[in-house]
């Protein structure tokens, strides 16, 4: 539904009427009454179509064996403008770096998606998802397990069929 502007000219004096104009107005409202142009989305039953580039709740990608893909390089907490990512990195016997603590405060997050852009191993993603209501505030700090549990699709930062945005 595109919004349009209709310029209404002021009627000349002596040519206005009330009853006839009322009839005209009632015709307009009657048209809407019998055929409402239904723009309401009945939300819990009907769902909005979200763009695949929507940036919402984060997702942490994982390897097939269930380990997070994150290598604790520290780029995402550095780039994060809202400073909402807390990362404590560790190293295992093989010399592989992994996150000991990885928390994202979804309240502070501004969903800019820079963590996803900067991630060298494509581990952290913003996701196509917006329903993250909780009963308490502390539930909004998502830890590593919770980030890996998220099953919604992760955001495409660009259209793969059109990588240069043409």
């Amino acid at each position: 539904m595109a919004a349009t502007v209709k310029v209404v000219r002021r009627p000349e004096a002596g040519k206005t009427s009330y009853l006839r104009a009322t009839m005209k107005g009632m015709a307009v409202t009657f048209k809407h009454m019998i055929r409402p142009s239904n723009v309401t989305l009945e939300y819990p039953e009907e769902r909005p179509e979200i763009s695949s580039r929507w940036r919402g709740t984060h997702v942490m990608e994982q390897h097939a064996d269930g380990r997070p893909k994150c290598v604790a390089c520290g780029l995402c907490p550095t780039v994060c403008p809202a400073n909402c990512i807390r990362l404590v990195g560790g190293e295992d016997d093989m010399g592989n770096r992994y996150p000991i603590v990885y928390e994202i405060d979804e309240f502070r997050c501004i969903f800019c998606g820079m963590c996803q852009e900067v991630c060298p191993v494509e581990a952290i993603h913003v996701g196509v998802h917006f329903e993250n209501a909780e009963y308490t505030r502390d539930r909004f700090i998502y830890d590593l397990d919770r980030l890996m549990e998220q099953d919604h699709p992760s955001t495409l930062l660009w259209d793969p069929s059109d990588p240069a945005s043409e």
Partner: protein
Amino acid sequence: MQPVSPFAFAVFAVVKVGVVFTAILLAVAYMTLAERRVSAFIQDRLGPNRVGPFGLLQPIADGIKNVLKEETMPATANRFFFVLAPALSIIPALVTFAVVPFAAPLPTPWGVVDMIVADVPVGILFILALASLGVYGLFLAGWSSNNKYAFLGGVRSSAQMISYEVALGLSLIPVIFLAGNVTLTEIVWQQQQLGMWFALPLSLAFILFVISSFAETNRLPFDLPEAESELVTGYHTEYSAMKFSMFFIAEYAHILTASALMATLFLGGWSIPFWDGDHMFWYEGALISGFSPMGEPIPASPAWWKTLLTFGAFCVKTSFFVLVFIWVRWTLPRFRYDQVMHLGWKVMLPTALTYVMLVAGTILLLDQMRVGGILFGAALTAVSGAATLTFVFVVDRDRIIGGSARSVPRLKGD
């Protein structure tokens, strides 16, 4: 077919009071739902559709909510009148319905029962008297609240009601001319006998009655007493819970009664168009369906299915006007106070007076020329049609909604 005995009459009267009262309150509850859904459709929304299928249980949810809410009483309010006002506004609205016949007489083993709560001989006068009582409820509510907004609402309502009562009364006079009586049963009968609804031969009276009914029921475009954008909610600003609900019920009961009156006075009441089978009237103690060419009364044959059908016709006509009330409300903006006064005193009153004279003269002329039957109705329809066209196309030219600003001479270049 005999009328019922006095004892049976009393029993049936009690039953009718109970049934009609319940039916009105139920209808009012569903009118609030209709208002909300129709307004939603007009504004391209959906309206309340969550409680029950299509939101049909919404009025019950609203009722429970209103009963359970806290009753507030302003510290400076006049306690007695503050409590009295909701009752005073709801009673006239409900009682007026008592004189409206809502179906053809019903035959029972104990005699034929009239489908009207009280067939009082003063019909229209009773309606006019109660219509003027309604203003007391609103004005007392506004005054006793001791709140400036409520008070302004009360003042507006009294000014508006008094102004439009004149036009309301005058627009009913042509109906009385044609029916020759003020009882509503006889008005329905006369429309059946004339073979056309009074809306045709008295079209301008019909328009004036509709307009003044809008003013009398405080509906848009005449809802100045409420005027939520200026006066919070006007006279019932200080009311809460069930007392507020009473004003709400009163408003919708007023609409229902006004719609029933429009249907009865101008659209043939419960009679079904183009069908003679439902013509019934008490004439000298017997139920007749008409007169033979020799002037002999023809006995009527009431039946339960005729009562049911005519009740259906009455409901259809009444709900049409209820829909019009809602429809107009969501079409028109509110008048300014001076526009209301201008319309009431300088347009409606002279028009109604002129029209009364015109109808009286036409009827006198037609009687002198001994014109009767359908020709009489056709002639009156032509005269009234001309008057209506004059009103809509000549009088209503920059004048109807003028207000005080119109009387100021225009500046150059304006």
